[in-house]
């Protein structure tokens, strides 16, 4: 079933690309089919509580490279989010683009490709499978952020997002390698690791997760990613992709349970992000940026809870992850609708939308209240669990987490209030008296049902989720139990009673609302994107430095290249000179070899002396043919045949190339000539001694008999050399011919460029 669903997505990508070429909205609706199917399957699995689907495809068994998938409870919950919200977002996007919008194959196709990558990521049961899909989400995200690629600032934002998440991916790969070296590549039944390698793996993996989940200081790409169309922001940059890092921390948590670095680094990332993200949300005026910074803060909260690692904290983290996806996607969809219907997202310019866009206001109010943690909403139950979890944690870690979570929650309420008042409130806070229209309610275009319906559904989910607390507990509970067995005793509670946590959270709502109302009356200037500027300056610096460095290394002088390579090879082969056993050396096995060697030396000497270029090419050919004759006398006809043919082609190549050059070699000055002579002599000597040493002292004996046997029995051929090439070591051959093809493409491209230059 896993394969069928993935195949449905791949077919869907192609179909969406075809359908989207003429009409982007048709493409998006076609693309919605595969996620809808997946949601259906996930719901059926959930209702029938069928066991986890496991499927595995071994790719290179010797290297433990497998595609392994497993739809356990956590994966099933994530599937509901990825495909469920995905379906809604595809429908919404069909309304987002106006009827006359230009056709695009790329947008619907890459949005669905992202959806498939994300599914692969949440289903992955092997670190390598997970990593492949992790990188795929980075790439599809890059394509989607850069959708409006005619705009230079959009391109910068997309590049920043790709380089930060891609760089994080490399760090993650290093971490996963270290981890897999300790406990293997499977992601189920992780055994706790310890020691230095565990610390290294924990650090690297957390950094990788932090780049993807936009944790301070790697968060700078997320606000920039808001340059994407709003459906993308709602789907990738709030509900799903940014959760990948959180998911990774959750899944690998059981392995790092005893590693102090894991807890403290996670707390550091999480706590800083909670506070700095919330502060960022209070500084910005663009409604979408407010939500984006809010996402940074919320992701920090999830990482903090997972870093604490207690049963209650993990349960709270998974519940919040679910609730956050619902309310944040709803809020983004509302902001996109406002953007389309009014033409702006600036809270200083918007006013009176509560009256003119009542449906959007209702959705935003419910989703916002869920985000702030106000009862009776799903967000409240999850937040309540989080506060109980941090209050219940003792020690320094608990204190840090409590300060960050409670402080962050107050700020969260504040930016939610500021967002709601700023966007929907009746009055304008703009002090610029030049624009008289700011006191009037913003003009609003007619509603688009395709946009409103998904937002309403997602907004309602918060209310329904509260009412159906038991069902939600059944969904998130097993997922949390998979990560931390202690989580089994907890459930989402509708009315906790007057306990400490409840009093604290009511205090948070009260003080946060007060702060939000005060701040929303104040006009703020657009803040400078400090971190993003630094990131872009670094990238630009690297991009400027690279050509200069390349210019120094790749100067274009062929003699210097050759000299460099020759000198390096000579130095590398130097150690062989000292372990050359002289007792193995024989002059020849057969006198004919001596004759051939003399002929080769004579040809080579002639090549050095001769002044005509054609003559030099021919002497080189003679050397090659002599060598292939030597191969024959050594009993290697295959090698001889290939050598002979290669020599023929090379001579013809020389002849062709010589047409562009003068007939004779130009005169060289004495010192340069001497240097080249010395280099050639050294190179020749080192190769000779190196070969002699290598053949005199082979490392072990070659398994000749085994190879010959297996050639006939398995490869079905009597020519051992060729069976080795096409069967025994066929992977090497595959690599080599791919290199050949790449070289050929490069040569063809160079020839094409020259033809183009010649024709202009």
């Amino acid at each position, binding site marked *: 079933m896993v394969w069928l669903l993935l195949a449905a997505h791949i077919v869907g990508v192609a179909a969406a690309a075809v359908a989207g070429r003429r009409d982007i909205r048709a493409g998006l609706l076609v693309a919605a089919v595969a996620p809808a199917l997946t949601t259906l399957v996930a719901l059926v699995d959930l209702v029938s509580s069928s066991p986890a689907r496991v499927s595995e495809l071994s790719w290179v068994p010797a290297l433990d490279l497998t595609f392994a998938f497993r739809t356990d409870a956590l994966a099933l919950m994530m599937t509901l989010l990825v495909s469920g919200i995905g379906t809604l977002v595809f429908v919404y996007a069909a309304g987002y683009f106006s009827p006359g919008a230009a056709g695009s194959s790329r947008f619907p196709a890459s949005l669905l490709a992202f959806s498939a990558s994300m599914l692969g990521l949440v289903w992955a049961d092997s670190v390598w499978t997970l990593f492949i899909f992790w990188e795929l989400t980075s790439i599809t995200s890059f394509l989607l952020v850069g959708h409006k690629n005619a705009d230079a600032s959009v391109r910068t934002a997309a590049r920043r997002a790709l380089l930060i998440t891609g760089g994080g991916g490399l760090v993650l790969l290093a971490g996963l390698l270290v981890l897999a070296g300790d406990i293997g590549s499977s992601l189920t039944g992780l055994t706790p690791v310890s020691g230095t390698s565990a610390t290294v793996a924990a650090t690297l993996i957390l950094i990788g997760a932090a780049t993807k989940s936009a944790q301070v200081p790697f968060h700078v790409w997320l606000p920039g990613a808001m340059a994407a169309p709003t459906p993308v922001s709602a789907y990738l940059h709030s509900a799903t992709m940014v959760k990948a890092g959180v998911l990774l921390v959750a899944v690998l948590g059981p392995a790092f349970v005893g590693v102090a670095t894991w807890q403290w680094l996670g707390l550091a990332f999480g706590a800083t992000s909670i506070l700095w993200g919330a502060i960022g949300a209070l500084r910005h005026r663009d409604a979408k940026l407010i939500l984006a910074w809010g996402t940074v803060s919320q992701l920090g909260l999830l990482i903090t809870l997972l870093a604490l690692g207690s049963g209650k904290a993990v349960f709270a983290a998974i519940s919040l992850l679910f609730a956050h996806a619902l309310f944040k996607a709803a809020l983004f969809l509302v902001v996109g609708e406002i953007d389309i219907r009014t033409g702006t997202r600036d809270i200083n310019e918007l006013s009176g939308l509560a009256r003119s866009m009542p449906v959007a206001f209702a959705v935003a109010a419910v989703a916002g209240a869920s985000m702030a943690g106000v009862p009776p909403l799903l967000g409240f139950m999850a937040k309540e669990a989080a506060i109980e979890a941090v209050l219940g944690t003792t020690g320094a870690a608990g204190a840090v987490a409590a300060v960050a979570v409670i402080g962050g929650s107050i700020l969260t309420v504040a930016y939610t209030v500021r967002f709601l008042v700023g966007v929907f409130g009746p009055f304008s806070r703009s002090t610029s008296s030049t624009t008289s229209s700011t006191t009037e309610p913003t003009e609003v275009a007619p509603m688009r049902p395709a946009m409103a319906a998904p937002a309403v559904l997602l907004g309602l989910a918060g209310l329904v989720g509260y009412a159906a607390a038991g069902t939600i507990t059944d969904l998130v509970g097993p997922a949390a139990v998979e990560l931390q067995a202690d989580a089994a005793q907890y459930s989402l509670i509708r009315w906790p009673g007057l306990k400490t946590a409840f009093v604290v959270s009511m205090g948070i709502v009260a003080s946060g609302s007060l702060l939000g109302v005060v701040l929303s009356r104040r006009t703020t200037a657009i803040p400078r994107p400090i971190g993003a500027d630094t990131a872009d300056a670094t990238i630009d610096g690297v991009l400027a430095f690279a050509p200069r460095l390349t210019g120094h290394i790749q100067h274009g002088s062929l003699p210097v290249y050759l000299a460099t390579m020759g000198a390096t090879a000579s130095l590398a082969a130097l150690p062989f000179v000292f372990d050359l056993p002289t007792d193995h050396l024989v002059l020849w096995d057969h006198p004919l070899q001596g004759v051939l060697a003399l002929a080769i030396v004579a040809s080579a000497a002639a090549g050095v002396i001769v002044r005509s270029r054609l003559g030099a090419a021919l002497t080189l050919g003679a050397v090659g043919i002599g060598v292939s004759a030597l191969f024959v006398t050594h009993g290697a006809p295959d090698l001889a045949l290939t050598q002979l043919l290669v020599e023929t082609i090379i001579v013809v190549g020389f002849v062709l190339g010589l047409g562009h050059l003068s007939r004779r070699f130009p005169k060289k000055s004495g010192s340069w000539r001497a240097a080249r002579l010395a280099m050639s002599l050294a190179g020749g000597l080192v190769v000779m001694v190196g070969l002699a040493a290598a053949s005199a002292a082979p490392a072990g004996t070659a398994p000749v008999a085994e190879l010959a046997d297996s050639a006939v029995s398995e490869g079905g051929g009597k020519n051992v050399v*060729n069976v080795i*090439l096409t069967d025994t070591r066929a992977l090497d051959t595959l690599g080599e011919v791919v290199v050949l093809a790449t070289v*050929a493409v490069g040569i063809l491209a160079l020839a094409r460029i020259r033809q183009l230059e010649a024709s202009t």
Partner: protein
Amino acid sequence: MILSRSPIFQLGVQSASPLAVIVGVYLLFAGHNNPGGGFAAGLVLGAVVILRTLAGLQKPTFGPALITGGTLLVVAVAAAPILWGDAMLDQKVVSFDLPLLGTVKTGSALPFDIGVTAIVVGLVIALLDGLSTSDSLVSKGNPA
């Protein structure tokens, strides 16, 4: 230039190239049990293309197609065993009876070798393309 379109050269290449193609194809099939193989076959066939181009009998235009086709074929042969659950590049040997030829034994190494041949010929053509200038190869008469 170095290329004189002498009738002797042209006629010689023209009559020799079918034989050389047969030798190349023989090497491709013989490689399993005797000296030869995809790489050697590719070089022989590549040499034929070079000679024919030098003689002005044809233009080296199908290089990209050979490279693409060869690479796709090689990768397909390498990946195909995964589909039925074997390891990548796993060898399948089949033998069947043909009229006239008797029992013929072949395997998945053959398409793999054909792919290698195509890539090598493509590479040779690419080299020819890269090293030649347009006036030295395209036969527009003979500028003395």
